[in-house]
């Protein structure tokens, strides 16, 4: 029977082509949009895992934190240790733009480096390093850096004109391996050197609080908020929840736009199939007169719809794969990928395409089985 399905589809090349294109377009949208949110969520997921069990303390509102807060936080019962980190955009001219993760200079205490991030070459920062840096893999690729190379960092004074008032080279001492996290876009350097260069002495962006063993980090986060003024603390669980909420929200917007496109593709299958069924009144009547069972006719019509779904789905996924690959390539040159085509996404896309075909083929197929053989008998 399969050859008959193929025959029927190739017979109406133009129409089949347009329908398949409709589905492909919908699935393409699903893949590209989905790829974007998949990338976001995997990146954040991995990043959060690397942050271990520390509570993240940030200013309540915008701005920075004074280092005196570190001492206050250290005094909160249950806090084993607390340390600050300073984040500034690597290129002040380009801060906070676009979808991807922006490149950041991260001032940290050498002893608090995340050692889970392996190095491909060089070494970690050690106490006493001044203008030395460990760079993420994206940064290394973007600026074509090797250990021993110099990387220019810029600072822009708030009050002066837009011109960059100060630049300085730091020496790359280590390069991290690709982790698929936001740390790939980090330039890590000693906190004190960063503070000095950016003229932000005694200032940090975030404070990380390590809970003492046996301390519930959620409760501790609340305790920090109560004990220290004008800060907002988030336990790892809370952080994860917040990020997930954001990702779900972004995903919801992108995916629903994509699904809308796919449903339009599905409707075009339905329209095509209805047209094709009513055009073939005689054919289905004839097949019935020849002794075709309901299931034979259902198989033929549903098969047609499902096949269009499969072809459209595969083309959509392939097209989406190619486009996102090319986009990723061009973004990678700037240091960060934008899409992740996960196996899960491919399966979802394909299943979605097939079920779209089948669901939208059901009613036309049902109509086909209802064709009276008498029609075939009499009418031209």
């Amino acid at each position, binding site marked *: *029977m399969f050859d*008959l399905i193929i*025959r*029927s589809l190739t*017979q109406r090349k133009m129409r089949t082509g347009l329908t398949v294109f409709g589905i492909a377009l919908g699935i393409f949208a699903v893949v590209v949009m989905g790829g974007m949110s998949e990338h976001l969520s995997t990146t954040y997921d991995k990043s959060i895992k690397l942050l271990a069990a520390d509570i993240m303390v940030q200013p309540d509102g915008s701005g920075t934190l004074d280092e005196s807060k570190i001492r206050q936080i250290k005094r909160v019962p249950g806090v084993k240790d607390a340390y600050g980190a300073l984040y500034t955009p690597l290129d002040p001219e380009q801060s906070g733009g676009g979808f991807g993760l922006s490149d950041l200079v991260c001032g940290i205490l050498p002893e608090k480096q995340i050692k889970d991030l392996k190095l491909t070459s060089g070494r970690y920062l050690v106490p006493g390093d001044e203008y030395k840096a460990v760079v993420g893999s994206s940064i290394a690729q973007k600026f074509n850096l090797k250990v021993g190379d110099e990387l220019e960092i810029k600072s822009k004074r708030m009050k002066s004109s837009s011109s960059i008032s100060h630049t300085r080279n730091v020496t790359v001492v280590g390069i991290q391996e690709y982790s698929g996290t936001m740390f790939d876009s980090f330039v890590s350097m000693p906190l004190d050197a960063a503070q000095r260069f950016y003229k932000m002495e005694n200032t940090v962006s975030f404070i990380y609080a390590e809970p003492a063993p046996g301390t519930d980090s959620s409760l501790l986060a609340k305790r920090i908020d109560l004990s220290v003024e004008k800060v907002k603390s988030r336990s790892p669980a809370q952080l994860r929840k917040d990020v997930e909420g954001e990702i779900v929200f972004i995903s919801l917007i992108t995916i629903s736009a994509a699904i809308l496109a796919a449903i339009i593709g599905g409707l075009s299958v339905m329209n095509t199939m209805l047209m094709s069924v009513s055009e073939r009144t*005689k*054919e289905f009547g*004839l*097949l*019935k*007169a*020849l*002794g*075709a*069972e*309901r299931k*034979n006719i259902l198989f033929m019509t549903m098969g047609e719809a499902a096949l269009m779904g499969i072809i459209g789905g595969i083309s959509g996924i392939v097209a989406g794969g190619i486009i996102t690959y090319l986009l990723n390539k061009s973004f990678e040159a700037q240091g960060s990928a934008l899409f992740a085509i996960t196996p899960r996404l491919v399966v979802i896309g394909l299943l979605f395409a097939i079920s779209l075909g089948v669901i939208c083929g059901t009613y036309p197929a049902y109509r086909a089985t209802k064709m*009276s*053989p*008498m029609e*075939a*008998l*009499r009418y*031209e």
Partner: protein
Amino acid sequence: MSNNGNNGKKGNNGNNESHAGGSEPVLRIRDLKKTYMQGRIPVHALDGVSFDVRKGELLSIVGPSGSGKSTLISMIGLLDRPTDGSVFIDDVEITKAKESEAPRIRREKIGFVFQHFNLLSTLTAMENVDIAMRFTGTSKNKRNERAFELLTMVGLGDRVKHKPSELSGGQQQRVAIARALANEPAILLADEPTGAVDTKTREVIVELLKGLSEKGQTIIVVTHDMDVARQTDRIITMRDGRIASDTVKGIEENEYEKRYDLQN
């Protein structure tokens, strides 16, 4: 247009087993009734029709439009259900069959030939014959073999790869006849088989049907064309849902043949 003058028994009840001797009837129809509602007015498309058809018989059903010929043939072909009465094919009461059994009965017992051939335009002659056997679970090799054999029999052995659009009307109808015979049906039902072809082709088709009948194939032809009907063994004339006349020429076969030869 005058009907044939033989206005025999009207509204005959009971059996028409008028043939002396002969084989078992392949088809038995008993008091078949079909009533449609046209708005609120009941229309008796069939009003108590009974007759038997023996194996190998070539029977034509004639009558004006609306006389019930088509209704009758769709009952025999299990395409429609009667209001009352029974149709037996090979002693099986097909009118009692469940809806789910209808496809199997259609493909095993009935072969259809239509006025407009109804070949699938995308398929070759071979595939058009083949498609009738697809629903029976026959292997592909057997199907191909049988399709080729049948097409050769109807004189199209050299046209098996042709699409319907590449065949003449007569050739298309012969493909349709081959298709109808594919599953060795008990009865070949031909609904105006010559209605869409010229007179020359008509003769080819009638000859083909006659040849099949001689080989033992039971054939029922519904037709408007008295020239076709006159060449069959037996003519049933329908009028207002009843059998107006049932003329068997086969009783005096020799005489009939003589007459036929004279006409030529």
